C-alpha cells in the first residue's frame, strides 16, 4: 500500500534558521500520526510543508505516491484534498453558515450540495440557531469546533491538525476529539497528522507517534512502543516529562 504522505529528506530554512532538517516520515491511509516535541522543534513547519503552504529547500514530498512540486497544478489539486486546522484558527468576518460554506465554495461545490452539508454540520455542532450570526461572536470553544468543521466539511482525504485543541477546557477538548473520531469514522482511508504538545492527547488519539527535536525527526514508532519502549534516549526522556520545554 502506498503511503498517503511521505517526506523524504525534507529541509526548510528561514534565512539562518533551519526549522526542519532532513526529515523523513510516512503516514499510511487510515493512520493517525502524532507529531510531538518541544516548542520550536519544527512541528508546525513540518505540517505547513505537508499542506504545501511553503516549499521545502531540499527533499521531496509525496502525496498519495505522487511527487509534489510547490505551486504546480498537481500540488494545487492535492491541496484541495487536504483539510488543515491551524494553531490559532480564526473565523472569517461573516456568518457561521458562510464560514462553513466557504470551504465548499472555494472547491466549486454547487449551492444545493453546500446547503445540505452546511445544514447537517450546523446541527451536529449545535449551532443551527446561531447560523446567521457573525462567527466572530462565538466563544473560543465554539470557534475552534467551527474551524474544525470548516476543515472537514468537504470530506478531505488528509487532515492536518496543529494544536487543534490547545487552550481549551476539558469539555471542549472532549467535544473536539469526538468531532475528530466522527470524521475518521466517515471513511476508512482518512489520514490524520496531529501536532500536539499534549502527550495524553497523542496517546488517546494516535496510532503512530513521531518525536521532533531541533528540526529533526528523532523517532517514529507505533504508539505503544513510542510511549513504553522507545529506541531513542531523547524520546524516553520526553515521554517521561524530563525535557523542559
Amino acid at each position, binding site marked *: 500500500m502506498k503511503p498517503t504522505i511521505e517526506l523524504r529528506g525534507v529541509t526548510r530554512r528561514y534565512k539562518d534558521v533551519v526549522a526542519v532538517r532532513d526529515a523523513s516520515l510516512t503516514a499510511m491511509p487510515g493512520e493517525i500520526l502524532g507529531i510531538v516535541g518541544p516548542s520550536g522543534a519544527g512541528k508546525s513547519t513540518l505540517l505547513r510543508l505537508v499542506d504545501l503552504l511553503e516549499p521545502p529547500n531540499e527533499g521531496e514530498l509525496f502525496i498519495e505516491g505522487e511527487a509534489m512540486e510547490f505551486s504546480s497544478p498537481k500540488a*494545487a489539486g492535492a*491541496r484541495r484534498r487536504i*483539510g488543515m486546522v491551524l494553531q490559532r484558527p480564526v473565523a*472569517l468576518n*461573516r456568518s457561521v453558515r458562510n464560514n462553513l460554506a466557504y470551504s465548499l465554495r472555494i472547491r466549486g461545490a454547487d449551492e444545493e450540495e453546500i446547503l445540505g452539508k452546511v445544514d447537517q454540520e450546523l446541527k451536529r455542532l449545535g449551532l443551527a440557531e446561531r447560523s446567521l450570526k457573525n462567527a466572530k461572536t462565538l466563544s473560543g470553544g465554539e470557534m475552534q469546533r467551527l474551524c474544525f468543521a470548516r476543515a472537514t466539511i468537504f470530506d478531505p482525504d488528509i487532515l492536518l491538525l496543529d494544536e487543534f485543541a490547545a487552550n481549551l477546557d476539558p469539555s471542549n477538548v472532549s467535544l473536539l476529539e469526538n468531532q475528530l473520531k466522527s470524521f475518521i469514522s466517515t471513511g476508512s482511508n482518512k489520514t490524520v497528522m496531529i501536532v500536539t504538545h499534549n502527550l495524553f492527547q497523542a496517546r488517546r488519539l494516535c496510532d503512530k507517534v513521531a518525536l521532533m527535536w531541533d528540526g529533526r525527526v528523532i523517532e517514529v514508532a507505533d504508539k505503544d512502543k513510542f510511549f513504553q519502549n522507545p529506541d531513542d534516549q531523547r524520546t524516553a526522556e520526553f515521554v517521561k516529562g524530563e525535557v523542559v520545554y
Partner: protein
Amino acid sequence: MVTTTGLELIEVTLLSLYVSGMATILGSAIGIPLGALIGLKEFGGKGAVKTITYTLYGFPPVLSGLFVYYIFSRTGPLGDFGILFTPTAMIIAETFLVIPLVAGITITSVVEVDKNIKETVRAMGASSKQTILTVMREAWVGLVMACMVGFGRVIAEVGAAYLVGGNIDGKTRVLTTAIMLETRTGNFEWAMALGAVLLSVALCVFLFLRLIQEREML
C-alpha cells in the same frame, strides 16, 4: 451678471454627481485591485511602488488636467476623439486623481487584515486569487473608506474640471466651477449657496457610503 437659476442649479448638481461618481467608480475599479495586488503580492521594488503610490496622493489636480488636456487637445495624440471640454474628459482627469488614493488606502487596508486570516484562508485550500478576494472582503471597511476619500477628492476638485471641462454653461459646468464663476462675478450669496449645495450632496453620498461600510457582512 451671471446668476445660476434653479433649473441650472439642478443641472449643475446632477453633472457634479455624475462626473465625480463616475470618476470614483472608475478610479476604484482600477485602484482597488491594483492596491490589493501591491499589498498582498511579494515582488522586487514593492517598497518603491508603495512610496510612489503614497506620493501621488498629492498629485495636483491641475497637472492631471494638463495631462488630459494635452492628450485630447486637437494636436494631441488622442485629439481625434474630440472629447476635450466634455464631461468625459473631466471624468478621465478626475479618475487619475482617485486611483492613487484608492490604491494607497487599499494597500493599507489589506495589509492590516489579520495575518491569521490570510494563513487560515490558504490553509483551507484557497488559491492565490481566492485568497486575495477573501482578504479584500475582510478589508471591506477600509475599501469603502478608500472610495469615500476618492469621492471626497473629486467632488471638491476644481482645477482639472475647469481645465479640461472649460466651465461651459449647460455642458460642463459643475458645482465647483460654478462657485468659482459666481465668486468672480461678485455673486457671493449664490456662491455660498452653491457651496452649501455641494456640501449637502457630499453629505448624502457619504451617508450612503457609510451605511454600506457599516453593513454587517454575513
